[in-house]
């Protein structure tokens, strides 16, 4: 365990990929810390680096990617210093497990669901024979699959989408991980099933006391599950705070833009708030704040120097020059202020 008392501590992580002879910096110095039992949601658009960041926690970066600098402290070890598979094997799937977006691609279609859960139990918990069988059925029961004995003998194609995701979750938590990473766990599911799966993960988290990291672009899901939120843009964490900090008191213009572009905050008949342009290419060196070219509130310095993480409160930090005492006062967009006022009105 690290000196700060957190379960996972990422410091100044830089991850690079070589692609067709060019270097792409996918993570440009990310830091975050996660306490035992917490639920963190990492929010960002495609290409922001949220999946790459979490893949580095379980040694699943693609062949052409590597950690350039920085550290990932977990349970007294620096995962960034891991070199080969033999380092990862005792950890991946056992202490840190992952649930992916599409349950069909994480299940083996040729093996029964029971067999796939059992494999994990035998490998990581050392059970065998009847004991392993019982533990398998118990896991299926725990994830809410009715008639688990019969279901254990069925193949993934005999399961519905929601049930497959339940089976994937059963595999992931079968070896009692300390951290469960859920990469867009409900994106491929229907909205009514989504609610059930999120409820299931929460219930299991209480029962098994693991720490959860969600990767998602759905702010509704974030509002539902998260204690803490990290907002990523172009390979950096640009704002982090409690869920309330982010939804009711966001400080980074990118977070403002993300929230404002939600249809729920729009006014029917008028255009929805939209961020112009596209994220920067990560092949090139980025000067200043990566969001500056799309930021209507950008200051001159945003194009020249990268903003440091400013502390807003003990739980809340954001990397924007707007928080510098010398910066001009910029109010958040109307929709964000309205949400904050409604929140404050309800809590007083």
């Amino acid at each position, binding site marked *: 365990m690290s000196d700060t008392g957190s379960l996972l501590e990422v410091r100044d992580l830089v991850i690079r990929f070589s692609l067709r002879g060019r270097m792409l910096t996918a993570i440009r110095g990310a830091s975050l810390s996660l306490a035992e039992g917490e639920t963190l949601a990492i929010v960002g658009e495609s290409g922001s680096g949220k999946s790459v960041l979490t893949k580095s926690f379980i040694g699943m970066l693609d062949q052409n990617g590597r950690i350039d600098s920085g550290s990932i402290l977990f349970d007294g070890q620096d995962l960034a210093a891991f070199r080969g598979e033999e380092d990862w094997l005792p950890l991946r799937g056992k202490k840190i497990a992952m649930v992916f977006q599409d349950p069909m691609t994480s299940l083996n279609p040729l093996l029964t669901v029971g067999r796939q859960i059992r494999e994990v139990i035998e490998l990581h918990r050392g059970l065998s024979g009847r004991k392993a069988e019982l533990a398998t059925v118990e896991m299926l029961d725990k994830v809410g699959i009715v008639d688990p004995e019969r279901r254990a003998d069925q193949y993934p194609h005999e399961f519905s989408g929601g049930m497959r995701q339940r089976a994937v979750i059963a595999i992931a938590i079968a070896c009692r991980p300390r951290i469960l990473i859920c990469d867009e766990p409900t994106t491929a599911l229907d909205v009514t099933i*989504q609610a059930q799966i999120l409820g299931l993960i929460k219930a299991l988290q209480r029962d098994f006391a693991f720490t959860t990291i969600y990767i998602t672009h759905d702010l509704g899901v974030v509002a*539902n599950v998260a204690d803490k939120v990290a907002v990523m843009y172009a390979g950096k964490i640009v704002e982090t705070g409690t869920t309330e900090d982010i939804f009711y008191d966001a400080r980074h213009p990118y977070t403002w833009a993300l929230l404002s572009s939600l*249809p*729920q905050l729009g006014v029917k008949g008028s*255009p929805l708030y939209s*961020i112009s342009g596209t994220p920067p290419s990560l092949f090139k060196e980025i000067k200043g704040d990566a969001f500056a070219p799309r930021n209507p509130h950008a200051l001159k310095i945003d194009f020249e120097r990268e903003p440091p993480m400013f502390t807003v409160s003990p739980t809340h930090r954001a990397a924007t020059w707007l928080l510098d005492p010398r910066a001009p006062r910029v109010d958040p967009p109307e929709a964000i202020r309205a949400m904050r006022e409604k929140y404050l009105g309800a*809590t007083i």
Partner: protein
Amino acid sequence: MNWDESLEPLLEIRDLGVDFRLKGGAVLHAVRGASFAIGKGETFGLVGESGSGKTTIGRAILRINEVSSGSVVFKGRKISGNIDASLDREVVQKIQMIFQDPMSSLNERAKVDYIVSEGLYNLRKGLGEAERSRLVQKVLLEVGLLPEFASRFPHEFSGGQRQRIGIARALIMEPELVVCDEPISALDVSIRAQVINLLSALQKEKGLTYLFIAHDLSVVRFITDRVAVINRGQIVELAETEELFARPLHGYTQALLSAIPIPDPRRERARVPLVYDSSTRDYSGAAPEWREVFPGHFVLADEAEEEAIRKKYI
């Protein structure tokens, strides 16, 4: 805009049924007895979960799926089943579709120039090369792309740009009705807003009518004028959008609305999702019928249910 029921609709679906024959001879009734009408200039939402039949309806309108019963009527003329060649050409031109996944709906081996104007090659055979090229450049500008993109391949574009190409391909045909099948669900949040705004702007400019097929209710609420909710092949409720969200009458609609995550932690944590269980409804007497319970607000219900609804709201 809200469509005046007394006007002739642009598109009408009458008691539509679409069946699929499965392996082994069984028949799947993908759509059963669906009826609705879409007014000119309206944005009509069709909402349901996967497998509900919403896309099948869209495809039946475009004559991709064969109709098993009922009919599709466009501008007063029946366009389902056997129709003559000139009407078929008209339908091909006037009704266009925008697809969900811009990564798989564009021909990877063709340049944008060809992708966008493929329909013109077929439908306007006498069109000169210079004129065709001019039309492509014009439509690219209209969807917010640069004319020089015409010479590039789809893989050179981001998801949002590719969806713009998909929109350009539909627009160049000068359609009257555009079937938008989940046009933004594969896009990132910030890009979604851009595409929604583009669709609205194009609608205003060109007087387009949209059938917007989606499962994301927050988007549907934002852009549609009226909504129909479909469950297991049957339309269970239809109303003006705000009316439907304010006063959902069918149990399935209530469950669906209650399941939407709200991007506001305090409200989201207080949200109680309802579960719809169709087996709790007893239709041993008469089958439920399509009933107009409030002006313009229809629900699939039997007599007792209609009475219960009226009691609750009066």
